[in-house]
Structures are given as structure tokens and as C-alpha cells.
């Protein structure tokens, strides 16, 4: 019992939200089982080998670390208010990330599965739209491109208003 309590607190309190190191999905998953939680959902955003029809060599992520960390903390806190969660953690990587490597991980745990899925989706959607983190795609043809920007302002007319995927399903 002590073991999970300690590791649980470690996960939430000492979590580095932004890191240039490999994301340790295994360690994060192992500390995400909680005696009151019947459901654990892990999302990993991996780098894939193609985008918009071009072959990707690798990605490079840049973040405004202090602002991105605060924002992720605030998103996790909002998720905990909205759902009853036993675990809510998120971590985003910076620097060079290769194909099949994880760029971002979100783990949620709750008594029942509906909450764990919904909260997980909510957290990753908000991180992708709001956190000051950017990716530069390096293609195998030698070109590069700062890409995949949130384009919600085109629909909402406001750079602070986003259209979240999770809103369509909640």
C-alpha cells in the first residue's frame, strides 16, 4: 500500500512535464495502478514515418518549458476537477524524437472506464491545442517544416478559442 502511495505522489508532484529525455512509459505505467481504480488508460503520441504524404525522418520538439509545464499542470488539475481520477499524469518530450518513439504520454486512472477514457482524451486534446510546444518535421528528402499547427482560429476567429475533439464525444 505504501509503495503505490509513494510512487503515486511522486508521479503527480515531482513529475517533470517537459523533458528532453526518453519518455519512460514503462515506469509511468507501472506506477499508475491504484487500489481504487478499475480502469487505467495510457495514450502515447508516437512519431510516425509519414505526414501529409511525405516520409518523415524524425521530429524535433521545442517548448517554452516553464509555460508549457504550468499549462500541463493546470490541464491535469482541470481534468481532476471534472472527473474523479485516481491518477492523472502527462509528460511531453523535447528535442529530437525518432520514428516509433513517444513524444507525449498521458495516463489516467479512475474507478470506471468511461472517466479514464474521457479524461485522457481531454488532457491530450488540450495539451495539443494550448501548450506552447512545437514540432519541426524533418523529412527524408532533406526538407524541414514547422508543422501541424493548431488552426482553430480559422474557424473560431479567436486565437484563444479552440475546437477540441473531446467536446464532440463528451
Amino acid at each position, binding site marked *: 500500500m505504501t509503495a503505490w502511495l509513494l510512487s503515486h505522489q511522486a508521479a503527480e508532484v515531482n513529475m517533470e512535464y517537459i523533458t528532453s529525455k526518453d519518455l519512460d512509459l514503462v515506469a509511468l505505467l507501472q506506477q499508475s495502478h491504484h487500489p481504487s481504480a478499475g480502469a487505467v488508460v495510457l495514450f502515447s503520441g508516437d512519431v510516425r514515418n509519414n505526414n501529409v504524404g511525405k516520409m518523415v525522418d524524425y521530429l524535433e520538439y521545442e517548448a517554452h518549458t516553464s*509555460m*508549457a509545464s504550468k499549462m500541463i499542470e493546470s490541464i491535469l488539475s482541470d481534468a481532476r476537477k471534472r472527473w474523479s481520477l485516481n491518477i492523472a499524469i502527462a509528460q511531453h518530450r523535447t528535442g529530437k524524437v525518432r520514428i516509433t518513439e513517444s513524444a*507525449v504520454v498521458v495516463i489516467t486512472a479512475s474507478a470506471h472506464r468511461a472517466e479514464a477514457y474521457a479524461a485522457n482524451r481531454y488532457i*491530450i486534446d488540450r495539451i*495539443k491545442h494550448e501548450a506552447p510546444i*512545437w514540432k519541426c518535421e524533418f523529412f527524408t528528402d532533406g526538407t524541414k517544416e*514547422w508543422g501541424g499547427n493548431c488552426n482553430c*482560429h480559422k474557424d473560431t476567429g479567436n486565437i484563444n478559442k479552440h475546437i477540441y475533439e473531446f467536446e464532440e464525444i463528451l
Partner: protein
Amino acid sequence: MKIEVFAILKEYFDKEFEIKDPLKTVEELRAHLALLNPASSNVLKICRFAVHDEFVADHYQLTGNDSVVVIPPSSGG
């Protein structure tokens, strides 16, 4: 004031630089940056600005000592 830019903005500006002009608001800074490098103006229109790690609105009053961060739309994950 000190300016720091991120991501695609680094293709138009140095990562960090000084502006000596007496700009009063974020709105004026946004227009000033677009004049410095007109190619950046489309991106600048959709950027957010931050001071002391907090996002600030267009009418935010700048001082010469402020460090201003220019934040393009997110593309994390």
C-alpha cells in the same frame, strides 16, 4: 525590451533580441515586428504574447524592462 521567439518565428527573427523603440502595447509590438520582417506578418497575427510566463492581451501595457515572449500556435503531441 527583450524579445524571445519560438518555433517558426526563428525563421524570421533571431531567437532573442532587443527592441529599443518605445512601444506601449502588445498590439504595437505585434505591428512593429511585422514591419521588421513583413514575411512574418501572417504568423504574427495568430501568435500569442506572454510576459512573466503569463499570456497577455493586445492592450497589455509594455514597459522597456519587459521580457516578451512570442508564442506561435501550438503543434505539440
